[in-house]
């Protein structure tokens, strides 16, 4: 479904991604593991088109999408949950969802009502301004917002960051539920969590992929874990 070939991405003069390649197949949950600053977020942003790579090629659903702006990626069926959540703080929860639904204009299972049913917590908060939600509530809302595009694939950047364990558990449930229908690319520092929800994983370090394998292989590889994941 998604194929990333040798991408190089820069922030100004600094060469962040130095030839990253990986792929995600339909129906999979693939996680990208690595430390803070290893290049996970940049990879996500490159795929989404927020920071287009200078070299390399990205193919999504059989079409080359390198360099397309994010809004075009959304129309093609990619949805994005950024690391720092980025709710629209002055819009209500319902408006946040609604805007995403209108902007993407993709038909499918999800719409505001369906989503609010799936997330009863959001339903209760639907008229609250998103900026006034707690971190966990915001995280759920942002995932819900991404689903409003009825995406074929969902990019989740560090969804667990800064969340209480109880919320992480709930999040895990949500991901387990939606992974039935949506392919997911997930970046996480919380490796145990990532390995629980994913099928396969890649380990990234200094802008390069250092290892990849199934979740099982990753869990068994002590060296990888201590060297790159600081577990």
């Amino acid at each position, binding site marked *: 479904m998604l194929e990333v070939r040798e991408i190089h991405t820069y922030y*100004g*003069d*600094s060469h962040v991604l130095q030839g990253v390649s990986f792929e995600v197949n339909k129906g999979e949950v693939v996680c990208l593991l690595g*430390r*803070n*600053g*290893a290049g996970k977020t940049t990879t996500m942003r490159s795929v989404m088109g927020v920071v287009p790579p200078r070299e390399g090629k990205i193919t999504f659903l059989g079409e080359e999408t390198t360099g397309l702006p994010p809004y075009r990626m959304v129309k093609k069926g990619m949805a994005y949950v950024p690391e720092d959540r980025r709710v629209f703080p002055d819009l209500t929860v319902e408006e946040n969802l609604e805007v995403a639904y209108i902007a993407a204009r993709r038909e499918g299972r999800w719409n505001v009502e369906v989503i609010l049913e799936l997330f009863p917590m959001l339903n209760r908060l639907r008229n609250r301004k998103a900026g*006034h939600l*707690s*971190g966990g509530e915001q995280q759920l809302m942002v995932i819900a917002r991404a689903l409003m595009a009825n995406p074929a694939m969902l990019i989740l950047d560090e969804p667990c*960051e*800064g*969340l*209480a*364990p109880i919320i992480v558990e709930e999040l895990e449930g949500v991901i387990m539920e939606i992974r039935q229908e949506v392919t997911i690319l997930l970046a996480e520092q*919380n490796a*145990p969590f990532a390995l629980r929800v994913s099928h396969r994983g890649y380990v990234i*370090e*200094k802008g390069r992929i250092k290892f990849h394998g199934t979740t099982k292989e990753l869990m068994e590889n002590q060296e990888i*874990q*201590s*060297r790159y994941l*600081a*577990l």
Partner: protein
Amino acid sequence: MEDKVILSIENLSKAFGKFYAIKKVSLQVSKGEITALIGPNGAGKTTFYNVVTGKYKPTSGRILFMGREITNLPAHKIARLGLGRSFQITNIFLENTVEENILAALVSYHRKGLSLFKGMNRYKDLLEEAHSILEMLGLKDKAQETAKNLAYGDKRLVEIGIAMAVHPKMIMLDEPTAGMTPEETERMVSMIQTLFQETGITFFLTEHDMKVVFSIAHRIFVLHQGSLLAQGTPEEIRNNPKVKEAYLGGSLDA
């Protein structure tokens, strides 16, 4: 015991609107030790730094540094008293050279900032001191480079260098190894240890890399959702079931 305490926090709270980022935290930092503050992202560590160093005003509570109340002082006055800090996000003077980054801090410390007519290059003593700091950091060759062109790890070192150049009594490092490669992390850890041994400055740091924390900290505070969850020696923290279960998710032993 009393004069061993360099920084004393009493019932410190900081609210943004209704949300309390820090809730009634009290702690004491001893002189001449390396103290670490740990906690997950969002636990309030950075807010804690910003309140203590004067970027934010606390909602309630008191902060005493070397016996003097600094609760509502502006940042530059707190820095003048000898409480230095580094930042989690690299926060240096990007368009200036590496040397100038350090020099700016030295100018401030030696109170030469209002010297208007004497060229910077005629302050031989300051230049020398800057060079010795850069040498200590292993950045001597890069003194004339523009800071924005440095590698990430070097930028973090410049960050520490700026903090050190103001001759602090105590220095607060915010995630000094964030985003570093294992090699860079090792370099940073040994740098901190060297600096600590050579200068005797009190170090206070936050860190997410537990290995680093347990290898260098004498004392650890654990912050969780804005409150102080636990404190103690590394050993005590490692074995504290509350910490282990509720927050570190078992990965301590890994």
